[in-house]
């Protein structure tokens, strides 16, 4: 579902956090958002914070206070600190609470609960678990499972990789890719990890100060190293290495996997 921001801004107590944001987020791709006030920008899309001026549209749906319930069904946000988002202490109770709240009618609700847990890679036993006893990686997976119950078109991950160790990070990456490829979701990720953004996202938005510095396909942005260095934006290691080699007249190509890079280096030494 395409998201369009037209001349959007956010002011608070005379401070301009976001100014004149014009942005188009493509449907069914993974878009990364990095830089200053990135969480604020996604909060505007999810209507957790209301924009001071401008117009935001998700598909045909206008984001405003009157539409709040429809917005919640269309856009789902997985917050950075998962514990902030739960109302109850038990996974099953939490799911039932949400179903009741969204007035959701489905006879096979238990099957649906099990299925959504399976999609995120957790088994049925998690239904009976207490949320606060789970690790933060698992809590994030539970959040995704809960959101899948009402099938939102847009899923936003706010800093999904912080606090995750290697194994959980890999799991989360696999899940995000699957949401896009198999379930055709529009996925938005905020992160400051340029290596991960380079590997995972199709499109990228870089915010600087209260404006957009760059918004384009991820490869195009991350391969313009001089522009990024000039603006003090972190450059992914893989792209930086290729750039340094190219400046020595070695014709390396840009790669997203270290193994491909090494094969390429091997050819050119």
């Amino acid at each position, binding site marked *: 579902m395409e998201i369009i921001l037209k001349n959007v801004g956010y002011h608070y107590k005379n401070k301009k956090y976001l100014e004149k944001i014009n942005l188009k987020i493509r449907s069914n791709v993974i878009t990364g958002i990095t830089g200053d006030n990135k969480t604020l920008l996604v909060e505007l899309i999810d209507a957790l914070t209301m924009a001071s001026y401008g117009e935001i549209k998700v598909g045909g749906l206008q984001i405003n206070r009157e539409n709040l319930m429809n917005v919640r069904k269309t856009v789902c946000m997985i917050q950075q600190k998962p514990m902030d988002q739960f109302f109850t202490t038990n996974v099953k109770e939490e799911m039932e609470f949400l179903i009741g709240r969204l007035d959701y009618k489905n006879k096979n609700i238990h099957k649906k609960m099990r299925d959504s847990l399976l999609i995120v890679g957790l088994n049925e036993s998690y239904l009976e678990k207490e949320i606060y006893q789970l690790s933060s990686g698992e809590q994030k997976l539970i959040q995704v499972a809960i959101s899948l119950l009402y099938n939102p078109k847009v899923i936003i991950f706010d800093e999904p990789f912080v606090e995750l*160790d290697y194994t959980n990070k890999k799991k989360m990456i696999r899940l995000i890719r699957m949401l896009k490829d198999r379930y055709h979701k529009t996925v938005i990720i905020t992160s400051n990890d340029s290596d991960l953004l380079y590997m995972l996202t199709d499109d990228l938005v870089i915010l600087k100060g209260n404006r957009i510095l760059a918004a384009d396909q991820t490869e195009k942005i991350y391969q313009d190293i001089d522009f990024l260095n000039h603006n003090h934006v972190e450059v992914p290691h893989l792209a930086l290495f290729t750039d340094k080699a190219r400046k020595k007249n070695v014709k390396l190509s840009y790669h997203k996997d270290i193994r491909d890079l090494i094969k390429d280096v091997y050819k050119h030494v």
Partner: protein
Amino acid sequence: MEKALEINNLQFSYPGKEVFRGLSLTVEEGTFTTFIGNNQSGKTTLIKLICGLLDGQKSIVAGYAYVNNQRIHDNSRFFGVVFSDVDGKFLFDNVYKEMAFPLENLNIPVDQIENKIIEIAKEFGITEMLDKKIEDLTTSEKQELLIAISLLHDPKVLLLDNAFSMMNQKSKEKILEILKARIKKDHLTVILTTMNLEEILDSDYTYVLNNGNIVMEGAPLKILKEERLLNQVGLELPFMIDLSLKLEFYDLITGVITDMDRMVDTLWK
């Protein structure tokens, strides 16, 4: 070589959570030992047990005395300790006063205190920092200062708990050089815990901790080559180490190169 530290069958639990079930190891005098592990692996608990902030029940022998928390004042000259968090670690608003305080506590005459502080400040290259206010320092400078203070009383063993976590690359290299010089000259023993695998390269011996157990130990280069095991315990190889090891496998370079410019220069002269 003398033993600086001996741990015999260390058992420790927090209420409701067991951390160590019989950990044993020895650290020799004048060496640089590192402990790596993810969150929850028991690194900080181990450091607290070694310096006597938590009671190790006579299973830890440092120098010639048992370490336990009743006898902490006997051990306080023996150890220097720095933790990763810099907030709430300072008592005064001024750098000089902060550095003088631990020496005043040791009943050292005023003129000697001044000499000692100037000596250390020269060694660390922070002479111009002495009359600054603590609040004006960056986090990286605060971590540097804490390490300098911990060495003021010439401890036999320096314990660093993830103490480079917020330090910039340049300062980190500077401090490592200073520590290496002290290890050589004064037979200082350094114990560092970290999650960043780049930091173990300079050490003599490395332990990999997972859930309070040592899962692997040995020379750092030997450990870095066990990528799969490191991934299993939730640790990720940093880009430059990953690249170095894979290029070394193809005989393109020798050893680990952590500086990208140097790597490019080595490959293409």
